[in-house]
């Protein structure tokens, strides 16, 4: 078996047993990247120090087996979305405005992964500034879906999801504003966790919509997602919106909690939207049946129609985008404002409009009011329920070019992720079947800081099914 196909759990076991070295593991990933990146376009920049980092990891392993305690991801190669600042390594957020930007400091997430001795392979492609859900707005060309190159991998963390699906990397880091981790994870047939807003630091992540941005892992299994989240989560003195709550994510505990008896899950009828692909819908309902077989107690619930979230999310996100992009004023980062692409300009204009005097109350303020309604409704629902389940995307991956026809493409395909993002909840996306050889995903949403519970039922599901083990044939 090729080493690059391993999960984090398997790789750690192999490294511990000295069946292979981190250098071999890293080289296997780099080999796959070299072989496949031309087709996939998932990596923008490779880390020239990757092998050195792997060698350092090997020295630590050789020094003491206890090193794994100190460095929980010791020697594990990974890919980082290009909106995370990496000190000394080019960071562009796939935007030409930052074409040659070398950061002077590192994002907290990157610093923590470095601290845990994971090996950075490189930076992955994304929608420019994270504006999109297909990776098609990237100024460096779109990423392709490993399951079918004519299809998009989803976005905005499309490069990260494709890298994991094509075994270019053992795991990857993405970031989500509304659906940017869960969406591409679904379309690429891998696992994606959007942690609670404020659970993982945003410091050093090029901001998209500050009030919903949440960094999260894209992995091959739910167990791996827990391993990574445990490392990157927790209070950060550099991000005032991170929570002081202790991190209670325990990957080891997942294995002993495969019985889901007594866990109450709810399926909101409104989330089986009219746009839903009937075959995908069937697969999602089958997955929910499986959860019931594992002991979950299902209730049919009612929530605000997710279509309302599209408007709320769009206004808040565009407003924040218009503000967050103001610093790229052409004075400092080398490239002038003419380098902003169509999508960014479009968003800046709409956001500027919704924040303008006379329109603020009509748009931004009203959106915030509906946002409060959505939050209150979730709070109400979670009084009687543990988790909410349903589809994450209306159907399997769309064809490359699909986003061009619709200026609201991202907001429409992400509508099932938007309500939970607006409310700052945690959500997991995991594969639950295929339609036309393209993956379909199940979404599990929990209240704020309920990551462990969400991961628990996700893990139990993957223990009972094998959808997550399927590989895209061209890259197997």
């Amino acid at each position: 078996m090729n080493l690059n196909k391993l999960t984090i759990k398997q790789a750690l076991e192999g490294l511990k047993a000295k069946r292979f070295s981190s250098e071999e593991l890293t080289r296997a990933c780099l080999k796959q990247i070299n072989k496949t990146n031309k087709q996939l376009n998932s990596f923008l920049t490779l880390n020239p120090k990757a092998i050195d980092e792997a060698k350092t990891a090997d020295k630590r392993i050789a020094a003491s087996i206890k090193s794994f305690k100190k460095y929980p991801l010791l020697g594990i190669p990974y890919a980082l979305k290009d909106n995370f600042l990496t000190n000394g390594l080019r960071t562009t957020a796939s935007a030409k405005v930052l074409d040659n930007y070398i950061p002077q400091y590192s994002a907290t997430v990157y610093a923590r992964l470095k601290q845990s001795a994971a090996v950075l392979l490189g930076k992955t492609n994304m929608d420019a500034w994270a504006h999109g859900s297909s990776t098609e707005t990237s100024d460096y060309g779109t990423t392709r879906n490993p399951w079918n190159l004519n299809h998009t991998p989803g976005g905005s963390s499309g490069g990260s999801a494709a890298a994991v699906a094509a075994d270019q990397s053992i795991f990857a880091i993405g970031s989500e504003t509304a659906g940017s981790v869960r969406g591409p994870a679904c379309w690429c047939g891998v696992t994606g966790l959007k942690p609670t807003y404020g659970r993982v630091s945003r410091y050093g992540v090029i901001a998209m919509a500050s009030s919903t941005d949440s960094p999260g892992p894209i992995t091959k299994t739910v167990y791996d997602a827990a391993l990574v989240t445990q490392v990157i989560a927790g209070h950060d003195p550099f991000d005032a919106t991170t929570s002081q709550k202790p991190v209670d994510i325990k990957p080891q505990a997942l294995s002993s909690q495969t019985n889901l008896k007594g866990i109450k899950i709810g399926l909101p009828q409104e989330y089986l939207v009219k746009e839903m692909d009937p075959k995908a819908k069937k697969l999602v309902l089958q997955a929910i049946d499986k959860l019931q077989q594992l002991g979950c107690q299902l209730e049919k619930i009612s929530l605000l129609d997710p279509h309302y979230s599209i408007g709320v999310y769009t206004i808040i996100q565009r407003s924040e985008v218009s503000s967050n992009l103001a610093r790229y004023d052409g004075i400092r980062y080398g490239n002038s404002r003419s380098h902003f692409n169509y999508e960014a300009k479009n968003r800046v204009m709409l956001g500027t409009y919704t924040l303008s005097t006379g329109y603020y109350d009509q748009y931004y303020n009203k959106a915030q009011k509906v946002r409060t309604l959505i939050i209150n409704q979730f709070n109400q629902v979670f009084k009687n329920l543990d988790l909410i389940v349903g589809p994450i995307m209306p159907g399997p991956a769309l064809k490359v070019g699909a986003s061009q026809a619709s200026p609201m493409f991202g907001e429409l395909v992400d509508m099932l992720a938007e309500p939970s993002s607006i409310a700052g909840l945690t959500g997991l996306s995991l594969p639950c079947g295929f339609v036309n050889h393209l993956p379909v995903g199940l979404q599990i949403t929990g209240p704020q800081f309920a990551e462990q519970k969400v991961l628990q039922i996700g893990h139990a599901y993957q223990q009972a099914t094998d959808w997550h083990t399927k590989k895209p044939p061209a890259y197997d």
Partner: protein
Amino acid sequence: MPINKLLIGTQKNHQLMTKYKPIIGMEVHVGLKTKSKMFCGCPAHHFQVKPNTHTCPVCLGLPGALPVANKKAIDWTAMLALALHCTINKHSRFDRKHYFYPDLPKGFQISQYDQPLSQKGYLTLDSGKKINITRVHLEEDTAKLLHKTLKGKHVSLVDFNRSGVPLMEIVSEPDISSGAETKEYLKKIRDIIRALKISDCDMEKGSMRLEVNISLTGSGIKPYKVEVKNLNSFRFVAQAINYEIKRQTALLQQGTTPRQETRGYNPKLKKTFTQRFKEEAEDYRYFPEPDIPPMVFTDKDIAQWQSQLPELPEAKVEKLATQHQLPIVTARLLVSKPANYQYFLKSLSVAKKHKLTSQQLANLIINKKINLTKKISDELQRQTQKQTVDPVIIKKVISDNPDVVKKYQAGKISVLGFLVGQVMKHTQGQADPNLTQKLLLEKLAVKK
């Protein structure tokens, strides 16, 4: 000028004053002397510091950087607000104020908009008139632009040391009616801030910056507002206001409404001048700063700030007037310099031993007769010695110089200086010259 013409002049002025009423509001920005900046850990002091040495990703506005609010700055601003009788808003937050300028690296300034830390306070002038305070809020300072010529080229340099320094903004209602009132208002604000020890309020270092909004009202006048900026002394504020009142009065008399604009002040010419026009209100597209959670304060927080307030100038004046029988004017002079006030209180008992009244002590301090850095009793010893000149020496000088005395008595008053000099010689310069002269005169008068 013939007296009748003068009278007519005053009458005319009086008519003008009643016809047009000045409406003046102040915006005062004060840089806080916290250790670190408002939203990052960089040192906040920036005066005469090597440019761009106190910077980090946050105050440079780099991609991905996030602000974390400085608690001390919030505490201090709340304390000033309480000192100005403001109501603390229990729900407060920061907002983004957007505009483009090279000294603003994020493209927005983090300020406060509709939920400031505090609002609705007042400050009482000596006349008893209350100037209402609209709000006291907190924001971040911008970077500093330096316009220089380097190698024959005109360049603008940006120093980010000032970027992100905590800045309080104190906004008054347009309740002020004259340059003199403005000056008093500003002095009082400054004295309170200095008593709180939260800023030096040093205008030369830019830690206190002033903006005036001034217009005239009266029947038939369309509302307008003229803003005067870049005023770096209280005196200039008063002068600028007086100039503006004259300028705007003249315009209104011609039937012209003064233009809505921002003006600067030239202290040499004692004139204001047009800087830029404001056709419409600028749209800053304020919205709540999503990177900083909203602030919630409790009664306990407010009580704590209240308990940390030092004795304020108003209370000090009151105390000096009632407990130490000082005239209000003397009390205010003493209080205006915290060091003088402290010295006065500490010296009271020693002064009593030297048979000095509190009024005499206060005068000595105010007239800078006492070196505040020296030991109290030594200083008072020196001062009280000066108060008396040994009569033996006076007598001796008079009897030793009969010729000079004769000259004096013959009407040559200027020789008195010589006699004073002789006394000074005998006392090694310790005698107070005024007192010596007085005693000599008394003695000489008797002799006559």
